[in-house]
């Protein structure tokens, strides 16, 4: 795995986002550079939910933030609603922000503990002058109700008085305040209890249907991802392994890393044993990633070609793309 390429791009679709060769690198000093995201391309068609899956260190969170220019990526282009974000000046970029919002992983830390909920939700509305105080208050109530929260109970409280699930609802309400076109959800349910996860996932789905949103859903949990997405992109160490519809990723896995990922998910069924034997060891460092295919050091099918040549994404079935020299059989 760990390849790049653009075979999976869909130039004929109604694309609201087009990312090309995005690279994000962090300078640690003394010549060491963390290659968090290396040459990734993707696109988003209006109305879809693209899931970006991978384990910690694969760069998925960094990718999400880089798309929003928080901060600007090291190189590459991000074209959102036909406007190039990477070359925009500060003022124009700011004007684009209402259309592209984000939801974060830690529900409690994503809200200012000193502010009551009404202030948290009022902030985006005031910054962008969406009405006078009365209209803003009405909008706040509307947003809270849409997130299944009772405004009267919630308005004057602060973030630390709520559970994780409620905080996440407030964050979702805030993200919706500016009527965005696209929302990037960065591990929105990872910090929540299992029974609350389902509530939030359903809420996101409802919001998407109701407001016509397009979502990027970042997660390390394949099962969660499968429930909500229309397209899945698997990442490893800053590169893309596989891009496919969710069912294909699970039932017709073609990449070795994806297979290991699928195989490691704990199943609540005592008769189904997980086979951890598929992959040993830990991901290598992002400072000095392996040459060629970055997954080759843990891949059971690695050959010399994998060390010399970086695999590019290519189509192996309709809508199914793999970056691997020796993909699994269908």
């Amino acid at each position, binding site marked *: 795995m760990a390849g790049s390429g653009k075979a999976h791009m869909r130039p004929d679709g109604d694309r609201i986002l087009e990312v090309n060769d995005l690279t994000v690198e962090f300078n640690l000093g003394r010549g060491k550079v963390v290659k968090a995201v290396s040459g990734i391309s993707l696109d988003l068609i209006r109305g879809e939910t693209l899931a970006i899956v991978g384990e910690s260190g694969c760069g998925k969170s960094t990718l999400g933030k880089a798309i929003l220019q*928080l901060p600007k990526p090291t190189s590459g282009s991000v074209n959102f609603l036909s406007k190039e974000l990477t070359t925009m000046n500060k003022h124009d970029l*700011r004007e684009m922000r209402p259309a592209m919002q984000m939801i974060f*992983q830690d529900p409690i*830390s994503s*809200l200012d*503990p000193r*502010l009551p909920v009404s202030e948290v939700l009022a902030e985006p509305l005031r*910054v962008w002058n969406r009405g006078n105080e009365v209209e803003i208050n009405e909008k706040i109530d509307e947003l809270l109700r849409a997130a299944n929260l009772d405004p009267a109970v919630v308005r004057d409280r602060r*973030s*630390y008085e709520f559970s994780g699930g409620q905080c996440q609802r407030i964050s979702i309400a805030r993200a919706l305040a500016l009527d965005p076109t696209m929302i990037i959800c960065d591990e929105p349910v990872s910090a929540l209890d299992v029974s609350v996860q389902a509530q939030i996932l359903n809420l996101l789905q409802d919001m998407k249907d109701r407001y016509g949103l397009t979502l990027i859903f970042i997660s390390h949990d394949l099962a969660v991802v499968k429930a909500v997405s229309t397209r899945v992109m698997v990442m490893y160490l800053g590169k893309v392994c596989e891009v496919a519809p969710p069912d294909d990723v699970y039932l017709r896995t073609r990449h070795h890393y994806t297979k290991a990922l699928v195989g490691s998910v704990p199943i609540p069924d005592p008769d189904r044993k997980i086979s951890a034997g598929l992959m040993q060891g830990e991901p290598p460092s992002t400072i000095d990633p392996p040459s060629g295919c970055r997954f080759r050091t843990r891949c059971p099918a690695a050959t010399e070609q994998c060390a010399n040549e970086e695999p590019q994404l290519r189509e192996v079935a309709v809508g199914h793309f793999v970056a691997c020299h020796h993909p699994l059989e269908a």
Partner: protein
Amino acid sequence: MFKNFWKKPLGFKFATLWLFFVVFITVTYDLFPFVKWDRISDMSQGDGPFKVPGHFLGTSYDGLDMFTALMHGARMSTFVAVVSVVVGGGIGSILGITAAYYRGTYDKIMSSMFNMMLAIPNLVMSLALISVLANGNNSHPATNTRRLIVLTISLTIVIIPILGRIARSSTLQWSSREFVLASKSIGTKNLQIIKSHIVPNVAPAILAIGFFAVGVVMIAEGSLSILGIGIPGGASWGSLLAIGRANLEYAPHEVYLPVLCIAFTVISTNYFGDYIRANLDKRESKI
């Protein structure tokens, strides 16, 4: 914080009342007829507290009423301490908060500057500044004012990096929280984020140390006065101490009364600083 005042612990009540008293005198000194009492007594010279009618805290060896002298001294001591902490804290906070929020080269420069400033011993610096900028006839009033200003400035310079570093480290903590990123993604401008998100969260930490700093400055001013480079003429508690030193044997109250005043003030400000910090910890642990 002041709700249920009478239910608060004894220390809180004492600290609040003492500080209120001190600040009250500082502010209203000129308005009240204290000046009338500030006369040299012919009857009593160097008698201790509660010994002479009309001078309930006694008189100094030169016949000055102690109580008036202490109130007079409160003014200057408080002025120097509060002004240097407020101005120094204000400048330090602005520098520290912006350094930690924007990071990069600006932050590196600020941190180095703070470190350099901290390395300069404040007594030596005050001595140098005063001997250069405010040297002159000790009894000339203009020299005294100049001395006061230079002294305050030198103490302010001491406070800037102390509170600046507190502000910086607190801001570093808070600006890495996700709600700051959330505000950026909403499109809130940086200055607005600092104003409404960073400052309110960072203020308790700075305030707590600020209170401690007031006490520290007051003691520093006292030390400088004993060394002869502080405020002359008995105009501050430290100055009274300096003068009273000579009469320690005959009129010890000339020394221990100003010492008690300084001590009470420092205890009170420390108490407040502790109290704010304890409340801060309580709030942080909820998060």
